[in-house]
């Protein structure tokens, strides 16, 4: 049970990074930390006591496999996370060219 609470604390650490940093790239890194905490949480859910990896091998009779479904979910979520990070970085470098700075306190033309 403590493992799951620590995953949630890692999520909050990433959220702290997104909310308080002023550099655009540090916001992207905080976002990545949040993503990794979600993947860790999903992968830990499938654990069964004394289980082995879910691959068929000769020489083992009646093994207890860990749950393979959360592992498939994590693979899909990693692909989605990659696309999100690539999109964020592409927009960030274009903002650098147009505004001349990475500081979000200066990137604030839209107001009200």
């Amino acid at each position, binding site marked *: 049970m403590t493992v799951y609470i620590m995953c949630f604390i890692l999520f909050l650490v990433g959220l702290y990074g997104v909310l308080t940093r002023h550099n655009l790239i540090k916001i992207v890194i905080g976002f990545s930390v949040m993503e990794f905490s*979600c993947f860790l*949480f*999903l992968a830990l859910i499938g654990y069964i006591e004394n289980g082995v990896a879910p691959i068929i091998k000769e020489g083992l009779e009646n093994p207890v496999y860990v749950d393979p479904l959360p592992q498939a*979910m994590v693979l*899909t979520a990693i692909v989605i996370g990659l696309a999100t990070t690539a999109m964020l970085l592409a*927009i960030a470098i274009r*903002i650098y060219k147009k505004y001349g700075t990475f500081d979000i306190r200066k*990137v604030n*033309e839209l107001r*009200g």
Partner: protein
Amino acid sequence: MELIPALYVVLPLTGAFLIPVVGYFVKDFQKILSVIITLFLLIYTIWFFAAGYDSPVITKVGGWEAVDGIPIAIYLVYDGLSAFLLLTVSLIAFLSTFYAIGYIKRFTAENNFYALLCLMIAGMNGVVLSGDIFNIYVFLEIAVMASYALVAFGTEKRELEASFKYQVLGGIASLLILFAIGLLYWQTQTLNLADISLVLRSGSHPTALMFTQALLIAGFGLKAAMIPFHAWLPDAHSSAPSPISAMLSGVLIKAIGIYALLRLFFNIFLMTYEVSLLITVLGALSMVAGGLLAIGQGDIKRLLAYSSISQIGYVITGIGIGMLIVVNGGNKTIAALSVAGGLFHLINHAVLKGLLFLNAGAVEYMTGVREFKLLGGLSKKMPVTATTSLGASLGISGIPPFNGFFSKLLIIIAAVRAEFYTLAALAVIMNFVTLGYFLRFQKEIFYSKEEFIGKLLYNKLPGTMKFSMITMVILCVLLSLLVIPCLRDIILNPAVEVLMNTGEYALNITGS
């Protein structure tokens, strides 16, 4: 017959990946293909309604049948609520694509625009049709990723900043949804929506379930732009190109935000008093705050974006009143009336706000500016835009015989009969505030005495833009016919039945 749901997802996806390959060699291929795909889906949805509907169409991807009564395949479910939302999505998608043929000529990378638009349509169709909770997340991400790229399409300063804000906030919401999906799997050991419903109704895990519900309301509430999760909407919807603003404000926040809340909280979870109260309060706050914030805006598209928040508040209030009545054990016909009013306002707002954004795009196309101070007196030079905009403004302010009047009337009548007098009074007051700022919108752009300083960039609007706007204003008048009982039974009632019979969804799927 079993393959119909798969067609809605595969066809736009194929189009999205054919366009870069063939459009590189053949000129104008992308426009023809997008129009053909959206027109085909629209005609198919209307034919599905006309042919009659009795039970949901279920596609099991891969052909894996259920084992011991437990579904193991990925299901695509096409029932009354999905059909209603697919009608909205297909309608606005076809009209926006047709409008975009004339509007997008000034950008250079036209190929990518149509490919991203088809991808967004595929994602939205997938969310509405999916019968599996992780698949909702995957298709949600596809649709939202395409919309991030489309908001930043012009690559000017403001559009990039708006897209970055939208991405960070939308990404946090998606991660909250993923976390909640993990918690749901932990408690129920299955991902299929019908199976989750059966497991949750037979056991009870109080604390973790309430935490999951709170995370889901936060995540999907941000996608649906409820207060207090609305901060990304004015920037993103005002900076996007106009056909994309019409699609975003018209269908995206409804198909991935409100549809998910409806499906999860009516059919999957057991309704509790706290959740119903929370949803109604958030809806009422959105109604009031969106309208009040729209009064002092100086940019035409930003005013329309804040007005979207207010109208989505109407939809959520209607649905919340229905949930509160069902939880308190009250009269089910009043609850059905309120939910029907909410859903009717959903399709009305899609058409009305889509038309208003297309008008704002036409004004920007001809004049090049978007502020109220600089515009004025355009009704002589742009007669089609002025007339259609007048129709849409009267419709959204609830003037009969346009469609906005009937949907708001249904919600207010249901609120009064269920003795929520505060909500009814708020709805009526905000209606007059909406009338106020939309009359200002009309006067300052089209009918004021001070003429527009500067010269018009083009002589006349392209024909495709005029066609879309005139079709939508005719639809505004035609949609008010949905209140007549015979049409209402075909289109609205299946959706309301699916929501009111909360246990039927699971029985329909695991029974067959």
